[in-house]
């Protein structure tokens, strides 16, 4: 009897020890995660907080994370004295235009490479895929010359087309469509549907998850793009937000509150896209097959 209670007690103790060890372990994991979370968020919090401060209170020590007297003066300055609404509209058009082009052309080509048979199919596909390796720096100068010659400098389509030319969308859509069973498409073809009807009525609706993933990745990339708009636009009213901010920070050097307000205007829409489509975003990274 005594031996049994002894055994039970030993088991109990080891259970308690394990439990404590597990608790300490979980606490350590959470601690590291919280530190990483704070590191990731702190600059944005500081941006937001500064955007609501009067210039005179910017440099108070110790730093004020919550402004004592929050003000909208920086935003008022931004909206009254600069063309920020126009820049935001330009950015939105570039974002939608790039995403739409990549999605439509990408899913058409992706469908053909995955499901249609034609001579040279694989050669063409791998030729396109090679384009993934080309760094944008190599293309900037000839693209600039080309766009100027085509009279598309200082136009939004001049910003959009070169950004939508990469093979990434084709690749993602092909990867996804390979997993759709042929029988489904054949059934529709037997019923006499034209290839474009099959594509539009069956393939596109079935590809919604891939389209959402691709669209989110491309939209965020286009919203944030900088070097190409910098090269191809010189007129003030054609600026996108990133370009406008880079110029504002030279014009209003030292007006940190206004700069942080402008940064917030550029940041929040990307954040909203991400929060809405987060699930697709992560899937998109996996879908692109770059997981190896």
């Amino acid at each position, binding site marked *: 009897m005594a031996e049994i209670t002894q055994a039970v007690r030993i088991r109990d103790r080891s259970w308690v020890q394990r439990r404590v060890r597990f608790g300490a372990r979980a606490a350590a994991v959470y601690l590291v995660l919280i530190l*990483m979370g704070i590191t990731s968020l702190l600059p944005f919090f500081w941006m937001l907080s500064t955007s609501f401060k009067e210039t005179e209170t910017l440099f108070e020590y110790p730093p004020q994370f919550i402004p004592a007297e929050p003000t909208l003066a920086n935003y008022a300055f931004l909206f009254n004295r600069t063309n920020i609404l126009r820049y935001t509209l330009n950015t939105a058009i570039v974002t939608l235009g790039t995403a739409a082009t990549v999605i439509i052309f990408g899913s058409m080509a992706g469908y053909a490479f995955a499901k249609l048979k*034609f001579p040279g199919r694989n050669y063409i596909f791998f030729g396109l895929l090679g384009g993934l390796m080309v760094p944008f720096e190599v293309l900037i100068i000839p693209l600039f010359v080309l766009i100027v010659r085509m009279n598309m400098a200082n136009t939004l389509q001049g910003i959009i087309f070169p950004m939508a030319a990469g093979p990434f969308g084709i690749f993602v859509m092909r990867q996804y469509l390979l997993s759709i069973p042929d029988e489904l498409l054949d059934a529709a073809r037997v019923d006499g549907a034209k290839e474009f009807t099959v594509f539009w009525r069956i393939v596109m609706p079935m590809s919604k998850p891939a389209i959402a993933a691709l669209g989110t990745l491309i939209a965020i990339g286009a919203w944030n793009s900088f070097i190409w708009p910098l090269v191809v636009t010189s007129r003030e009213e054609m600026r996108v937000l990133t370009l406008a901010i880079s110029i504002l*920070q030279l014009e209003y050097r030292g007006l940190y509150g206004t700069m942080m307000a402008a940064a917030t205007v550029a940041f929040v829409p990307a954040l909203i896209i*991400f929060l809405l489509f987060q699930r697709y975003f992560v899937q998109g*990274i996996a879908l692109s097959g770059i997981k190896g």
Partner: protein
Amino acid sequence: MRRSQRRALTGYLFVLPAVLLFLMFLAIPLLYSAGISLFRWTGMSEATFVGLSNYSRLLTDRVFWLSMKATAVYAVMVIPATTAAALLAAIFVNQGLRGTNVFRSLIFIPVITSSVVIAVVWNFIYQGGEVGLLNAILRLVGLPGHIWMGDMLTALPAIAVIGVWSRFGWFSVLFLAGLQDIPVEQREAAEIDGASEWQAFWHVTLPLLRPTIALVMVLAAIQSFQVFDVVFIMTEGGPYYSTHVLGYYIWTEAFRGLRMGYASAMSYVLFGSIMIITFIQLRILRPAT
């Protein structure tokens, strides 16, 4: 028309728009750039054929070598740090504790943010005196402040910190996918054999992650060789060329100096460097056979 011919035609029509866009804005510019690199050209005037002299001039251009050095130092700082931070983040998120997905989202927020926004915000954080948040925090814990972006020794590391901070969340997604592919039994088997958790990680998990590590390092290398936006906003290559990376030199030569040929030659050197580094890394990190 035969049925197979009609199907082939349909296929070509479906790929046509994407292929045209690709040829026009990627393939042809790629070749055009190689051509431009053989000329002296302002972009407007008559171009003069100079053969390979744009490339040979690079060898004696001091600023070019300073740019190569800044790019290499940046890459050496960013690649391992990003890989390590991403792996660490993935491991901690993957512990299966409640609510850890929230943290996966949090570390992703810098990834989806414009590099211009990031540069403007960090520029403010790095300000000298007590203006900047970093110096204010240092003062709170009793450490002296510093003019981070004005010092040759700290400007490039300060930019590298931003590079790691803004990219590791992306790569941690790749590591998470890699970790979740590893069967639980493999690690449990090791632990039953008496391996400590650390040993199990070192001898079981890490070798299985090798392909993911290779991929992440290659992608981080490609990205770090192309750094531009943050340098453009924060330092314009200074102080004293310490942050004058190759991407920035290409841009200034092309669009400030109007030396299109010289800049094109440099862009091909950048392209070549990226290919060589990728090849070497893939060779080193190739799965042991």
